[in-house]
């Protein structure tokens, strides 16, 4: 027991290093704790001075950053001012104004700035990007050589600009202004506005709330809780005030503690890494497979949970992959609480399975594990294992479902080809987990097959074995539902999976001779295929269910009684009129500030965030409009009088219905008086309108909603909406004929549905739809229908191809890593003939195809642009006609008229006069400052300067890009009056989807072709390379000494000739070898005879001399003859003994007469051999003997001597002290014995001589020991292999067959 414990815990080897590092780490952790206390205590004691210093530092950082932003803008302005084309224009040397516009536009887009170029007279000559107010004095100052900067506040953005003079040879010819948005004035975040302001950026960076107030007259805050500093412009003017709150003690100390905690966590993580490494080194090489597997599994999962507990790595990295908004599951107590965490878990699982497979594959696959022979036990175990496989299958299905249901990922969005990083990582997770599952399931199937191969007494035929396995899989596949309440996959699916596993296992067993490692590339590719084939349907089913669930959830918003919700929205929004800011502006604000109040209240309100059609109105006590902002459908929002407002303020939030049927609109209104110090300042009114056409949902276009807001419109598949009364159509966003009726079966199903909703399939026109019907009222009179077009077969195919492509990318990535690791380790992978053929085929086939695909894609994009351009051209012409037809110019320019014109032409439009907006059908976009009122510079250049009749360009707001068509509006006398612009702003999403859809189709078709080409290329490469491969393998066998090799390949031509020549050559070689062996044997015996003679002569000479000496002393009658006689006799006896030993050794080597074979238990023989050595306390033995080891036929005495010889060698190699591990294990064909020492090892240059007679590294040996051992083992048809590393030790591995009938060719290469 003590020996076993010592072998299991050889503390002395690892303890010094491990304990040393652990103590250092623990010491560091303790020191960190002390340091934290000291630091916190220091800050506590000196808080006042620390607070002052830190706050000042923070404020200085703010002002520094402010200066830095100005410098950046100045650099851009200087860059523009240095451009030759700009200088040429300003100097009058060039009139290429168009080029200046184009260059400026490029720069403005690239740097996200607005650029203005002023001539020497102060007039604007070229521009691009956003406009904004500029003080003419600033421009004049620049023209006089002064550098100026300023900050101006717009409706949404606050801009900073810098003006630099354009100076040539000391004279000033113009000025360049560059403007950049530095703040977003309201908490808006929609498709257009996603910018983070400077103050927010600084707040995040410094960890305090930074407030930047702009203006020359802004004063620093007097409140003692804050500290302020004036921020200056580039010219030294005051631009505003930066304010931060004084550092709060608790916040600061919390932050310091947080930093210590991070270091603490980092140290703990390092400690875990060190400990796990030591544990791995200790347990990873343990001779017992089971202990090794259990220990490694425990290490991996303990480390994973410790990292989870420490919140590593998400504590250190703020990345989207650790954001639960993307994905989070409660599985395993947080093992998959984000995509990143799930990836770590998947990798841990993979490493775990990899260890299991690497450590246990040989035994599992060679059926060295215990196998029951009793048929009932075999069936019980087989049933258990097949159930385990299906349980694992269910586990993977559950992971896939969780990846779908607990995430926002759009796995099968047909418009997405290249996945986002987060989605890509999730695909990686699914692939790794399914890969692990298939590996484990294959190994399990292999074991089941091996188990069934042996019956009670005899081996079973293969057909019976595979039939039994198939029967078990089919049975378990059907009965699994009984065990699991939610099996997640159908019995048929399980059986198909089981059959695929059996086929895969069968192919692996057929290829057993080529290696059984499941991670061979070809096997990995098969697993990839299986994974895609079986798990994609699970994924698709989960997606379909999730889509339905999500649509049902979104649909709840529609049938949710909107009155309650919209009344609540109005009520909440009214509170914005009562903020301090509103009162301040009403009391002390300028008229401009008062005019902007309605907009600012909207921007801060719930109605604004939700993106409803609404109006915010401020009236003074006499009913005069102070401020008004409206967004969305305008009609119901106009015509509100003071009386209406007074009524609304008295009655609370009201609901009115205007119109009827499809034209019905519900208007939700609320008003309140705004009072300060008992004085009525104004009335505030909020109106939200919802029309029947939008099914009373009240939404404005999605572009105005908060980004990230999910709704039916943002769902990745288009959803059409209809409302029915009974089965008659009331309104629809689909182009349904008015006579369209709901199918009777559908209405009946809805009537019977307890949930008030039902899914039906319907056909509208030529398209198939999945439709969700919902009852809007309990009486089942009003029915809402959500129609979702069914995805066609090509999308499913595209989905599978896409999934396989993702998996292939993961596999190629993994392969690249493996190849790199091999290269780093100095063992680079060498391409085979087949690899080279495959690469050549794939390259030849795929490269032109990729080129064509890219060309088609570019062509398709260009074609789409052409179509879009053509459409915009038509639309601008229609708008031109409509405008020309409008009789009254004033009527056109009123607020409602353009909107109606746009409805008539179905195109939104703007009209510019000069370079300024005059009329717009979407005035709210300009009122809010989302779009610029100034005409785009490049459009001005094209239409006005170049005189084009039509111009189309892509413009952008932030990251949102859209196309705009421009056309001059020409009326009397062919003079251009104005410019019409038709932006595709609202349709851009639709256009983008169309582009993506085209891409998807192109990609899908080419991906399928690529797949077919790859399969054909692989098959061809395999066919061509197979004979070469077989020939290579045969050559290797010949090199190993096996001259009986046959190349089982049929080939014609040169390859066939080569194979025949090779076989003829091996036959010749075999004959030559036989001659050589005979000759060598003769030589060996001659050498042996010489050696024997020499060895015998050695003792004979001293004997002869001794006898002569004895004769002489006898003749001389020497006095001490008796003593001499005794000494000489002793010496002669010793020499005779030596002769006897020599004779015995040679006798044993040469004779090996008639071994007395008997059934021997190897464990018993080893015990006997070890007993001789166990008396020596300096040597310990770790014994790991397999129980119930089968007997082998052997001569017990010879076997014992062989073991003694090997053990003695081991003991001597360790200088008679240390540990020797001895283990036995049952293998399919017999018994394996391993004797391992940790001694000096055997140098490579003498390994090949170890079994040669007469070779020895010892001074007192004959060099016959190992030769005799080898002969003993080979006479038993066994094998012996010696693995040795210098200074690490030697392992002797012996295999003994059960039966001597076993035919085994001993290999010559038995020392590694």
């Amino acid at each position, binding site marked *: 027991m003590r020996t076993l414990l010592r072998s299991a815990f050889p503390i002395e080897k690892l303890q010094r290093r491990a304990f040393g590092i652990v103590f250092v780490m623990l010491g560091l952790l303790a020191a960190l704790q002390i340091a934290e206390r000291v630091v916190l205590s220091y800050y506590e004691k000196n808080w006042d001075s620390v607070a002052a210093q830190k706050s000042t530092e923070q404020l200085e950082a703010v002002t520094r950053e402010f200066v830095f932003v100005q410098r950046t803008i100045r650099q851009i302005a200087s860059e523009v001012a240095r451009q030759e084309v700009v200088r040429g224009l300003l100097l009058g040397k060039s009139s290429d104004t168009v080029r200046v516009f184009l260059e400026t536009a490029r720069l403005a887009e690239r740097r996200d700035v607005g650029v203005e170029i002023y001539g020497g007279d102060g007039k604007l000559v070229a521009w691009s990007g956003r406009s904004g107010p500029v003080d003419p004095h600033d421009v004049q100052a620049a023209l006089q050589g002064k550098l100026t900067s300023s900050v101006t506040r717009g409706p949404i953005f606050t801009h900073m600009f810098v003006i630099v003079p354009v100076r040539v040879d000391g004279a000033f010819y113009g000025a360049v202004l560059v403007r950049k948005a530095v703040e977003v004035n309201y908490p808006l975040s929609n498709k257009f506005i996603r910018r983070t302001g400077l103050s927010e950026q600084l707040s995040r960076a410094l960890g305090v709330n930074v407030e930047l107030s702009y203006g020359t007259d802004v004063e620093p805050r007097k409140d003692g809780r804050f500290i302020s500093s004036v921020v200056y412009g580039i010219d030294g003017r005051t631009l505003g005030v930066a304010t931060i709150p004084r550092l709060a003690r608790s916040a600061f100390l919390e932050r310091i503690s947080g930093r210590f905690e991070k270091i603490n966590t980092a140290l703990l993580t390092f400690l875990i890494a060190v400990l796990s490494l030591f544990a791995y080194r200790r347990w990873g090489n343990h001779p017992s497979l089971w202990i090794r597997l259990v220990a490694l599994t425990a290490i991996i999962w303990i480390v994973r949970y410790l990292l989870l507990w420490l919140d590593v790595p998400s504590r250190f990295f703020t990345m989207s992959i650790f954001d639960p908004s993307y994905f989070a599951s409660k599985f395993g107590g947080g093992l998959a609480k984000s995509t990143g965490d799930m990836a770590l878990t998947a990798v841990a699982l993979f490493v775990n399975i990899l260890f299991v497979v690497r450590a246990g594959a040989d035994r599992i696959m060679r059926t060295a594990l215990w196998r029951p022979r009793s048929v009932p036990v075999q069936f019980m175990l087989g049933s258990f294992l097949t159930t385990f496989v299906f349980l694992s299958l269910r586990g993977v299905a559950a992971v896939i479902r969780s990846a779908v*249901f*607990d*995430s*926002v990922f759009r796995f099968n969005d047909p418009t997405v080809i290249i996945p986002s990083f987060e989605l890509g990582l999730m695909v990686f997770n699914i692939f790794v987990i399914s890969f692990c599952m298939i590996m484990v399931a294959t190994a399990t199937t292999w074991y089941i097959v091996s188990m069934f191969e042996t019956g009670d007494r005899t081996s079973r035929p293969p057909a019976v074995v595979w039939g039994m396995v198939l029967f078990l899989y089919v049975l378990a596949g059907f009965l699994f539902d009984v065990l699991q309440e939610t099996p997640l996959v159908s019995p048929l699916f399980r059986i198909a999976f089981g059959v695929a596993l059996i086929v895969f296992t069968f192919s692996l067993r057929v290829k057993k001779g080529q290696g059984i490692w499941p991670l061979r590339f070809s096997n990995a590719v098969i697993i990839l295929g299986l994974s895609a084939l079986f798990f994609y349907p699970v994924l698709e089913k989960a997606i379909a269910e999730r889509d339905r669930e999500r649509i049902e959830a979104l649909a709840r918003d529609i049938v949710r009684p909107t009155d309650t919700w919209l009344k609540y929205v109005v009520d909440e929004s009214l509170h914005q009129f009562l903020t301090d800011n509103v009162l301040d502006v009403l009391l002390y604000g300028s008229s401009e500030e008062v005019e902007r109040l309605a907009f600012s209240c909207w921007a801060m309100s719930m109605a604004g965030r939700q993106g409803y059609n609404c109006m915010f109105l401020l009236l003074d006590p006499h009913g005069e409009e102070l401020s008004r902002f409206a967004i969305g459908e305008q009609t119901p929002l106009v015509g509100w009088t003071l009386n209406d407002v007074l009524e609304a303020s008295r009655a609370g939030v009201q609901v009115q219905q205007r119109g009827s049927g499809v034209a019905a609109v519900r208007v939700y209104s609320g008003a309140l008086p705004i009072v300060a110090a008992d004085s009525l300042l104004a009335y505030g009114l909020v109106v939200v309108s919802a029309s029947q056409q939008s099914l009373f949902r009240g939404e404005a276009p999605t572009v105005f909603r908060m980004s*990230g*807001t999910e709704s039916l419109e943002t769902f990745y598949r288009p959803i059409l909406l209809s409302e029915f009364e009974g089965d008659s159509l009331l309104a629809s966003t689909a182009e349904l004929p008015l006579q369209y009726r709901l199918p009777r079966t559908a209405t009946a199903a809805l009537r019977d549905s307890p949930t008030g909703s039902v899914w039906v399939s319907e056909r509208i026109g030529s398209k198939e739809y999945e439709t969700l019907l919902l009852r809007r009222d309990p009486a089942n009179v009003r029915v809402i229908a959500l129609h979702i077009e069914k995805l066609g077969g090509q999308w499913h195919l595209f989905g599978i191809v896409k999934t396989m492509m993702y998996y292939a990318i993961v596999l190629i990535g993994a392969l690249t890593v493996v190849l790199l690791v091999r290269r780093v380790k100095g063992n680079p992978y060498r391409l085979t003939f087949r690899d080279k053929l495959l690469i050549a085929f794939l390259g030849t086939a795929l490269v032109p195809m990729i080129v064509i695909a890219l060309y088609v894609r570019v062509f398709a994009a260009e074609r789409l642009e052409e179509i879009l351009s053509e459409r915009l051209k038509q639309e601008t012409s229609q708008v031109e006609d409509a405008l020309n037809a409008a009789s009254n110019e004033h009527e056109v320019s009123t607020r409602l008229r353009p909107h109606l014109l746009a409805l008539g032409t179905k195109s939104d439009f703007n009209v510019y006069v000069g370079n300024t907006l005059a009329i717009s059908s979407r005035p709210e976009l300009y009122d809010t400052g989302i779009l610029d009122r100034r005409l785009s510079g490049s459009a001005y250049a094209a239409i006005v300067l170049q005189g084009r009749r039509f111009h189309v360009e892509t413009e952008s707001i932030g990251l949102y890009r859209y196309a705009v068509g421009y056309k001059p509006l020409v009326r009397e006398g062919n003079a251009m009056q104005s410019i019409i612009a038709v932006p595709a702003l609202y349709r851009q999403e639709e256009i983008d989807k169309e582009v993506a859809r085209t891409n998807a189709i192109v990609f899908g078709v080419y991906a399928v072709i690529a797949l077919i080409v790859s399969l054909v290329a692989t098959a061809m490469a395999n066919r061509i390379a197979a004979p070469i491969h077989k020939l290579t393998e045969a050559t290797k066998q010949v090199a190993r000494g096996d001259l009986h090799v046959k190349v089982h390949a049929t080939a014609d031509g040169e390859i066939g000739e080569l194979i025949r020549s090779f076989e003829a050559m091996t036959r010749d070689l075999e004959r030559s070898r036989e001659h050589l062996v005979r000759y060598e044997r003769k030589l060996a015996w001659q050498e042996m005879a010489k050696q024997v003679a020499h060895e015998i002569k050695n003792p004979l000479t001293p004997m002869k001399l001794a006898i002569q000496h004895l004769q002489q002393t006898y003749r001389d009658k020497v006095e001490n003859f008796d003593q001499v006689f005794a000494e000489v006799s002793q010496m002669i006896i010793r020499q005779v003994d030596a002769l006897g030993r020599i004779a015995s050794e040679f006798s044993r080597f040469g004779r090996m007469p008639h071994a007395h074979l008997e059934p021997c238990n190897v464990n018993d023989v080893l015990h006997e051999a070890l007993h001789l050595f166990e008396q020596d306390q300096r040597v310990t033995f770790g014994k790991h003997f397999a129980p119930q080891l089968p007997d082998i036929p052997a001569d017990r005495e010879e076997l014992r001597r062989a073991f003694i010889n090997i053990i003695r060698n081991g003991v001597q190699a360790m200088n008679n002290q240390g540990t020797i591990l001895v283990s036995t294990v049952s293998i399919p064909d017999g018994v394996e014995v391993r004797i391992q020492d940790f001694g000096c090892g055997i140098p490579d240059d003498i390994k090949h001589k170890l079994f040669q007679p007469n070779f020895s590294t010892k001074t007192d040996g004959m060099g016959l020991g190992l030769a005799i051992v080898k002969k003993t083992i080979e006479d038993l048809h066994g094998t012996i292999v010696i693995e040795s590393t210098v200074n690490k030790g030697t392992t002797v591995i012996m295999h003994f067959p059960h039966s001597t009938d076993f035919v085994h060719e001993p290999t010559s290469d038995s020392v590694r």
Partner: protein
Amino acid sequence: MGFLILATVCSLHAQEQARDFRIVFDEIQHGFETGNISSFSSRFAQQLRIDLKGEGNRYCSANQAFYILENFLKTRKVLSFEFTNVGANDDVPFASGVVVFSQKGAKETSHIYVSLMPFGKGWVIAEITLY
């Protein structure tokens, strides 16, 4: 008489329902106050709407909601929480209130809106909006 009994039964049923959803709101309030999301996470609908301080109003699963709220409260300490308005019109119980956090030592006041939806015989949380 029959009408009176029916009216009484209906009234009692309505009171029972109201009590029922008030319990949910109480659990939410207690969970926020103690920073313990798991105390009411079992009340999450399978898919619920979450909008935290303008991060976007989107649907997520109950599991996601749990970790989103847990992460949200990891960086904030709730100083006070109160539902000031609890109501149920048109079968949609909702509650709105004010929650005061402390984040990095600075106080932060937010409004909260929570709505429920029926599930089985009880109520589950359909929407949580912090603004």
